[in-house]
């Protein structure tokens, strides 16, 4: 068992949660989201984000607006839907529980 495997799985598990969190603060377009995720070292390349966003959007958790761009094609600006908001709240709760559980065990 490689430590990298486990790391990758852990990151992947919380990726959706993080994307929803970023979008709960403001509308954003994929490059913005990636910027934040990169800073948090959660994601390395942009490509991974697009399928995730599309899937969350199709699940009704996200919606987007087209915004004209001066530097290329129009951009999709994503925002949370109400469902997304609820979903995020649930995830937040679970995350906090998990965090506490891990803290507790690590003591």
């Amino acid at each position, binding site marked *: 068992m490689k430590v*990298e495997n486990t790391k990758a799985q852990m990151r992947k598990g919380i990726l959706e949660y993080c994307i929803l969190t970023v979008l709960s603060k403001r509308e954003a377009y994929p490059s913005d989201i990636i910027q934040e995720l990169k800073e948090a070292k959660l994601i390395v390349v942009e490509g991974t984000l697009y399928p995730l966003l599309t899937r969350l959007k199709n699940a009704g958790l996200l919606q987007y607006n087209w915004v004209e761009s001066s530097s290329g094609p*129009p951009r999709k600006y994503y925002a949370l839907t109400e469902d997304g908001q609820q979903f995020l709240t649930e995830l937040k709760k679970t995350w906090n529980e998990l965090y506490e559980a891990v803290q507790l065990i690590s003591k």
Partner: protein
Amino acid sequence: MNKTISINIAGFVFNIEEQAFEKLSLYLESIKRNFQHEEDCDEIMSDIESRIAELFHEKISDRKEVIIDSDVETVVEIMGKPEDYISDEPQAHAGTQSEEQAEFVEAEEVKSEGSTKNNGRRRLYRDEQNGSVGGVCTGLGWFFGIDPVLIKIAFVLLVILGGSGILLYIILWVVIPEAKTTAEILEMQGEPVTLDSIKDHVQGMKDGVKDGASDVKSNFKKAVNQGVKASSKLAQSLSKIFGILFTIGGIVGLLVLFIILFGDTGLLPLVGTEQVEDLPTLLGILYPENRSGMVFFAILIVTFIPIASLIFTGVKMLFGITTKYKKIAITSSVIWFIGATTLALTGIELGMNFRNQVEIDYEVPVEVDSTNTLFVDVAEDDIFSNFIEYNNVWNYSELIRVEDEKVRLGYPELRIVHKNDSTDFEVILYKGSNGLFHKEAIHKAENIDYKIDASNNTISLDPYFTINKEERLRNQQVIVEIHVPTGKKIKFGKNIDRIQVDVSDDYYRHNEMFNGTTWSATSEGFNCSECRDKRRMYDSF
């Protein structure tokens, strides 16, 4: 100086160097593979393309108008390698997916001399590039990791043992998709589909180097490979042996075919004698005027194509030629089927011409004096030969001779029948024929020309009967029946061997022994005097 191509990404036009373009399109193709089974595929791809267009847009300035190789590399760096785009289907395959991703992460980070681990996801495709006909066997070979020649031999055996192989092959040909794209070829060969492997493969094809198996081999794999190599050698030598057999068999078949079709069948010791007319002549008196040429041609096609392909296959196997001749194979199959259909249709049409059967009887007056013996002779045979013994003729076509507009048929039949209820000899001539309609059959029977001479206690029969060529062969028959009253005798004279004789259904003439025999009709049937050994006549059947 570099050539540039103009491309359109997400509605924006970019000039891109050829090399960079190749890289980019390979990149997009291999990304797409990760999503191709998802319904969102198009949307994801267009999002990604939009982003790439945006990134390219940033690279372009007044001083730099062309997208170059390094720009594409930067984009790949930002967007991630195809391996990073593992699509996840959260429910069912969560476990395997993450394992796979982990494997890719590992591969990326370990990066052992650029070689990636074979992820073992082989898929079944047809390999038309390396295959002989449709690439079915070669594809199966890839899939099972064995030499395709072994599979080919299995198919050939199936063809020989009942022909099911052909049908199976056609079904598999239709069912199994062809490996068209580089990615599909890699999948077929069980190599992972990554940007690197695609690039390697394309490069390999350009260099004309056939890429071998993956570098990473455990000892076990090596052992398996050696086994495969050994069996491949066996398969090669088997292939050579079959090649020789096919070629020789094919050439012999071809010779026989050409002799039958065009030559003198007398050259063939087993098939026929020099007595037999050649095939076009026989067809000419069987089929309607405008059909015989067509039928001959169809027979030529239907027999020639399999023999030719046998030789072809044999030579290919013998010399290890791997070039595919798909077009020739398909064309000749189509032609073969057309030929076979023609034969079937004309055959049905011919069969219709035999629908009605008719027999007409004529009484032939005979006078026999107080000796009470009727002599039966057969006239000299100027067409066939007096020395043909009817019962040694195996093949009726030996007794057909075509002369100008006449056809001589050398098989009249003589029946000697005992009649209790009469006192005089009776000779009845039956002429029979088949035809499309009843009336036609009657005409054909009437048109049979057969001569019987009756005089001085003797009737003399012709050894053959004659029809006009335009009548065609329609199962025309001539039967002479002699009714012998009790107390009277039949004596067979010269050349009686030349026709088929049947005495009272009891004695079938079998050889020269009928010559000079006398048969007296008694109340119990016929008695033979001068028969050398009656028993031998039964036994010699």
